[in-house]
């Protein structure tokens, strides 16, 4: 299986404009609009020729730009074809939500919770979107670029001495 086949299948289904792709050292990255992300993932997983049945990782990025500030990256692997690709999608700072892919790959559950914890990206349709690492009462999202390294004083209370 080749990268060209993946791009061809995606373009046939979603149109030329909706699929932006680039290749670097034989690794394919496809950028798709957030509205179609679930459909794209479902196609990649269920197409008999592609079979990207493993979601190796799902993570967020903060580009720290006025437009398309936050992104989510899906690293996929096909166990049958031994092929790796990654899917990218971007969200705006004001409208920081996108559909969840838990229904496609169950493993996305905790990955999406982690992305929510660290970036505050809300995954719509997630069964249980809570923080993973930080305490429930914490109000910030520490992997955002505008979060200071040493944190915000008083935001994480300590027990009394």
């Amino acid at each position: 299986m080749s990268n060209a086949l993946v791009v061809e299948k995606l373009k046939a289904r979603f149109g030329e404009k909706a699929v932006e792709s680039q290749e670097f050292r034989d690794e394919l990255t496809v950028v798709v609009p957030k509205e179609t992300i679930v459909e794209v993932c479902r196609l990649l997983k269920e197409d008999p020729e592609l079979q990207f049945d493993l979601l190796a990782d799902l993570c967020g990025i903060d580009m720290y730009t006025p437009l398309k500030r936050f992104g989510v990256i899906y690293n996929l692997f096909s166990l049958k074809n031994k092929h790796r690709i990654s899917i990218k999608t971007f969200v705006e700072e004001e409208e920081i939500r996108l559909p969840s892919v838990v229904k496609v790959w169950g493993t996305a559950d905790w990955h999406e919770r982690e992305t929510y914890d660290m970036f505050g990206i809300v995954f719509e349709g997630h069964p249980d979107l809570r923080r993973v690492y930080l305490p429930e009462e914490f109000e910030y999202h520490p992997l955002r670029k505008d979060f200071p390294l040493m944190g915000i004083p008083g935001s994480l209370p300590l027990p009394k001495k």
Partner: protein
Amino acid sequence: MGLEHAFGDSFITTQLDAVINWCRKNSLWPMPMGISCCAIEMMAFAGPRFDVSRFGSEVFRFSPRQSDVMIVAGTTTYKMAKVVRKIYDQMPDPKWVIAMGACTSSGGMYRTYSVVQGIDQFLPVDIYVAGCPPRPDNLIHALMTLQKKVQRGESRGSFPAYVGDQKLNQPQPLPVKAG
């Protein structure tokens, strides 16, 4: 047999406190608060090669209610701090704390929002051990230093706390309302 030979038909006088402290210092039961990699060195400290039972401290208790000294071994995050404090509060008086390693003592290399920059921000620490991680010998040295403190009757964590001749955090008299 040794003692009778040395003292013959005589007797020894001492203070009750001194005898009790002597007993305490030779059977310190640690609470292993192994949070991260320092715990591996703490296990070596208890194991046969370094063998802390030579100093009467081999009885590691995983219940805080049966232990005297808490060895906090590892990076303490803000989320974990509540747990550490809760376990410490369950230990009976008198009690001591050893802060093992750089992370525990000062945050170490984790100068970041999620790690407490030294557990003395929420616990009364008696001994700090340097190292990343400290070798088991360092921890044995810390224990021996702690034994000297115990013999002197010093404890920062007990209530009221004693350090040297000083009494710390004594119970305050209740304020009297005038009129």
